């Protein structure tokens, strides 16, 4: 795609995102006029400013982060079926979050914060261990990293199953909702936490677009072009682990965004990561804002977990993509 067309698309998507975020302020347990946010000292203004606005911003940030992570992981592995969860970050986070939930006493002050911290540390740690094992067995083919990820994910799924087995019904319910993802409790502190992690990591990721482009040719070819493939892969995976770890810690596990959005964006712009990153961030944010609205509206005043909606819509969409894409061959 030409630079002019790309820039035009970025502007249009940015405008669409802002419009959607503004409109989505209206929806929730009760419908509110978004302009009431400018009123002072009304309950509606308080709801709009301190409940809905941070939640919508967090949803947009998380959508952008998951999509950009998906682009990165698929680029590293040159595999359109790869997604961030394959490097173990989601299952690692789920395991340590479950561990924390069961180990810490119910009613503990800041229990949610401890669980989020445990999820973040677990996600990053498991990704690090998977990469360390990959380095230890000294195989050059990054495809092996995916295989290790699949094995570790299966192991952790079994471990989480065991933990669930020992949990009481309250803990089980909490674990279930956490594993389905959601934005229900996200306030300004969540937005600030996400910005602190995602903006620097995302910026650095974007600076690596040349390395990811070179990796499309293969590890050896990227090295011939002057890229230190092992170092770049390590740095990129660490950044993805940090980004996804932060999103999982804040909002639980949300699948399919990191898998589907890169495919949509490659259709729009091609495979050049310089163009792919901004598009993926915008499309991911738009999809997540829409999903969040659906989660609030469909069974209002109850909320459907966001991860359920992304899976319900994402899986059939991905199946359709599979039937139309040559690159899956």
């Amino acid at each position, binding site marked *: 795609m030409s630079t002019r067309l790309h820039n035009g698309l970025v502007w249009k998507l940015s405008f669409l995102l802002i419009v959607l975020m503004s409109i989505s302020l209206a929806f929730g347990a009760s419908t509110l006029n978004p302009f009431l946010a400018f009123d002072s000292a009304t309950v509606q203004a308080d709801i709009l400013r301190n409940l809905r606005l941070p939640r919508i911003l967090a949803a947009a940030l998380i959508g952008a982060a998951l999509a950009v992570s998906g682009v990165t992981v*698929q*680029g590293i*592995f*040159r*595999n*359109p079926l790869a997604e961030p969860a394959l490097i173990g970050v989601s299952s690692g986070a789920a395991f340590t979050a479950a561990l924390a939930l069961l180990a810490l006493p119910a009613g503990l002050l800041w229990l949610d914060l401890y669980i989020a911290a445990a999820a973040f540390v677990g996600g990053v740690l498991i990704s690090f261990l998977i990469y360390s094992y990959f380095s230890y067995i000294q195989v050059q083919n990054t495809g092996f990293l995916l295989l290790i990820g699949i094995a570790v994910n299966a192991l952790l799924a079994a471990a989480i199953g065991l933990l669930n087995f020992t949990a009481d019904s309250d803990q089980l319910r909490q674990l279930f909702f956490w594993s389905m993802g959601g934005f229900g409790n996200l306030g300004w502190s969540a937005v600030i936490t996400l910005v602190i992690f995602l903006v620097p990591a995302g910026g650095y990721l974007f600076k690596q677009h*040349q390395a990811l*482009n*070179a990796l*499309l*040719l*293969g590890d*050896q*070819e990227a*090295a*011939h*072009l*002057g*890229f*230190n493939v092992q170092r770049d892969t390590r740095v990129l995976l660490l950044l993805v682990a940090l980004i996804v770890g932060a999103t999982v810690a804040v909002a639980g596990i949300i699948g399919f965004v990191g898998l589907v959005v890169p495919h949509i964006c*490659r259709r729009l712009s*091609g*495979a*050049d990561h310089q163009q792919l990153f901004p598009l993926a961030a915008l499309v991911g944010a738009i999809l997540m804002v829409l999903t969040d609205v659906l989660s609030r509206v469909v069974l209002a005043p109850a909320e459907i977990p966001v991860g359920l909606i992304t899976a319900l819509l994402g899986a059939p969409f991905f199946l359709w993509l599979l039937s139309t894409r*040559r*690159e899956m*061959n």
Partner: protein
Amino acid sequence: MSDLQSAVSLSNVSLTRSGSRHLNEITVDFPAASHTVIIGENGSGKSTLLDVISRDTKAGEGTVSIFRRDILSYTLPELAQHRAYLKQHQSLGFELSVFDVVKLGAINSRIDRDNLVGEVLVSLDLENLREKLYPNLSGGEKQRVQIARVLAQCWQAENHVCLLDEPMSSLDIKHQQQLIGLLQDLTDRGLTLISVMHDLEVARHAADFLLLMKAGEICDFGPADKVFTDQNIQKTFGVKWPLKISD
């Protein structure tokens, strides 16, 4: 060849893998701004030699120098400024247009990349395919695109070594001829080319110098017209040359 400046020098290079000797005490100077074609039977060490020159494989013994500097002393970005390498089998993970694939080769270029890629495409008769998706191309077209990608990396020619492993495979006779002409132009502009070929007639036409290999050793090396003799070919391949196929 002492009067010619060498671009690539190998001194007593040997390589043993899994107890098998792939290269045995290779000492050779590849002249700068010329095209050396390596020929030899299957498994004689031709591709391994390119791997060692490119630093994909580290020589077990001996030293390899590019432009009088030990290859191990280059950083990866420095090496990429002096050496390009087309390996035998290429694949892409995603759908890229022909233009984008070739542009990846010019990723480190300091001059306008779009213009450079345009020039390379024209010179390889790929201009009409520039917007086509790589997976939709025929085998020969894909091969030309990969050659274009590698040549885009060393298009400035001077102070560059380009390694091509079987560049003529899958090409029809028209495009073989065209490529030979282009490679000649590039060596005239200062590019040092080292390639592996199997078609002896094409090799003879394309080469300024020929290097004959057998069982990891050099049988002969020198100007193509002197080295390409019936006796040398028979010695290298163990068959009578020219080939006579009776019915």
